C-alpha cells in the first residue's frame, strides 16, 4: 500500500517535471528565433577534429540509396560506394584506422540540418557546391566533377535537354540543385519532387514520369541497378561535388583538402574512381 502511494507520488512529480521541461524548451526556442538566425556559427563549427579524436570515431552523413556512391545492401547491412571510400580515407588519415567510422543516412533535404545539428561531422553525399549552400556550410575542394543529365527507359526518345517538351513530367528529389536547374533550363516541363532519389526512381519505374533528372554520376548507378533504363549522354550543367563541413571550421577543411590532394597525387583517388565509375577520371 505504502509503496503504491510512493510510486504515485514519484510518477506525478516526474510528469510535472517533464511538462515544465517541454514548456521551457519551447520558451528558449522562441527567444532564440529573434537574434539566433545570424548567431555565431563559427563558434559552433570549430573543433570538429578534436571532437572526432575524442570519440575516436568519424561520423559522416552519406546516402544509403545511391548505387556507386552510397548504397546500403539490405542483405549484409553494409553501405558501400565512392563516397564511403572517401570517408574511410579520412578516417585513416585522422584516426589511423579506416574502420573507425559511423555512417548516418542523409537525403538531399536532411543533410544540412543534420550537419548543423551536430549529428554528423561532415557530409559526403554527392553534394554540389553552390553559393546558396556556402552560406550554410563550408566546402572542401571539389572531390568529384559530375554533370546533370537524364535517366530514361531504354526505348525512350529523350536524348538530352533539347528533347524536353511541354507536358513531360520530370521527377527528381526535393531540395536538390537538379530541380532548380531543370526548371531554369526547361521551363515547359512539369517537375515532380520526391523525398529522395530512391522514391523518385520508384516513381519513374511506376510510370509517374518521363525521365528522372540529376547528376549523371548518380544516374549511372541507377541504370546499373535496372538494365531497362539508360543515361542520356549529354550533360547540361557542371556539378562539382564537395565535402560539407560545419561553417567556420577552417582546420578541418584544410585537413580534408590536404588529404584530397595527397590522394590525387599518389593515385589512390584514381583507383577509387575506377573501382566505382568504371573509367579513369577526366583530367
Amino acid at each position: 500500500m505504502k509503496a503504491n502511494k510512493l510510486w504515485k507520488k514519484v510518477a506525478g512529480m516526474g510528469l510535472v517535471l517533464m511538462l515544465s521541461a517541454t514548456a521551457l524548451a519551447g520558451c528558449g526556442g522562441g527567444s532564440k528565433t529573434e537574434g539566433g538566425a545570424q548567431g555565431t556559427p563559427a563558434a559552433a563549427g570549430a573543433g570538429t577534429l578534436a571532437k572526432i579524436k575524442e570519440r575516436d570515431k568519424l561520423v559522416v552523413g552519406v546516402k544509403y540509396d545511391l548505387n556507386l556512391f552510397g548504397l546500403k545492401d539490405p542483405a549484409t547491412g553494409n553501405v558501400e560506394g565512392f563516397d564511403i571510400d572517401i570517408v574511410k580515407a579520412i578516417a585513416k588519415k585522422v584516426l589511423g584506422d579506416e574502420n573507425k567510422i559511423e555512417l548516418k543516412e542523409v537525403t538531399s533535404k536532411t543533410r544540412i540540418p543534420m550537419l548543423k545539428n551536430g549529428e554528423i561531422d561532415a557530409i559526403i553525399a554527392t553534394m554540389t557546391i553552390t553559393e546558396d549552400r556556402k552560406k550554410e556550410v563550408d566546402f572542401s575542394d571539389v572531390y568529384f566533377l559530375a554533370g546533370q543529365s537524364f535517366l530514361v527507359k531504354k526505348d525512350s526518345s529523350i536524348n538530352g535537354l533539347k528533347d524536353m517538351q511541354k507536358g513531360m513530367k520530370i521527377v527528381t528529389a526535393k531540395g536538390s540543385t537538379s530541380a532548380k536547374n531543370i526548371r531554369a533550363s526547361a521551363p515547359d516541363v512539369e517537375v515532380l519532387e520526391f523525398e529522395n532519389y530512391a522514391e523518385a526512381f520508384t516513381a519513374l519505374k511506376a510510370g509517374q514520369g518521363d525521365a528522372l533528372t540529376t547528376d549523371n554520376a548518380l544516374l549511372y548507378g541507377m541504370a546499373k541497378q535496372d538494365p531497362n533504363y539508360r543515361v542520356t549522354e549529354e550533360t547540361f550543367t557542371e556539378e562539382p561535388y564537395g565535402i560539407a563541413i560545419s561553417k567556420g571550421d577552417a582546420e578541418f577543411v584544410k585537413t580534408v583538402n590536404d588529404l584530397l590532394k595527397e590522394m590525387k597525387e599518389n593515385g589512390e583517388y584514381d583507383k577509387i574512381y575506377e573501382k566505382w565509375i568504371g573509367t579513369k577520371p577526366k583530367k
Partner: protein
Amino acid sequence: MDFIGAYTPSHLTFLLEGFWVTLQVAFLSIVFSFSIAIVVGVLRYAKIPGVSQVLGTIVELIRNLPLLLIIFFTYFALPEVGIKMDKFWAAVLALVIFEAAMLSEIVRSGLNSVEKGQIEAARSSGLSYVQTLWHVVLPQALRRMVPPIVSQFISLLKDTSLAVVIALPELMNHAQIINGRNVNYVIPTFLMVAVMYFVVNYALSVVSKRLENKHA
C-alpha cells in the same frame, strides 16, 4: 508481381528490423504522450483560471494540424532555433506532441463523464479536491477511457509510418528500399507490411474489447 523474389529471408529480416524500430518509436511515444495527456487533461478539467484556457488553446491548435507537418517541424525547423535532436527523437517528439493533444482531449471528456454527485459526496466525506481527483474521479474515468485510448494508440502505431519522410529506418522506409530494387516487389512487400501492422493493431483492439467487457 514476384512474391518469391520479394519474400527472401534477407528481405523479411530487413522488414522485421524496420518493424522493431517502428515498435520502439511507438512504445516511447505512447508512454510519454499518455503521461503528458493525463496531466494536461486533469489540469484542464480542474478549471484553474488561466492555465486551463492556455492549455485548451494549445491542445486545440495542435489537434487541428497535420502530424506530417509537426514531424517536418521538429526535424527541420527546431534545429534552426537551436533545439537539436536526431531523427529518432525528432519522430518521437512529434508523435508525443500530437498524440498528447489528442489523448488529453479523451482524458478530459472521460473525467467530465464522472457524475458530479460523486465528487460532492467524496468532498463532504472529508477528502481534499486533489484526493478526490486522484482516488475517486481518475480511476473511474480511466476505465471508461480504455476503448478510445486504445484506438488512439492504434492510430499512433500507424502514424509512426509518417516518419518515412525523414528517412527514419522504420518499417515503411525499409519497405520502400526493397521496392526500389524491383517494381515487381512493390505489391508483395506492401502486403507483408500491411499484415505486420494489422496483426499488432488487431491484437490491441481485441485486448481493448476484452478490457471493456471486463469492466462493463
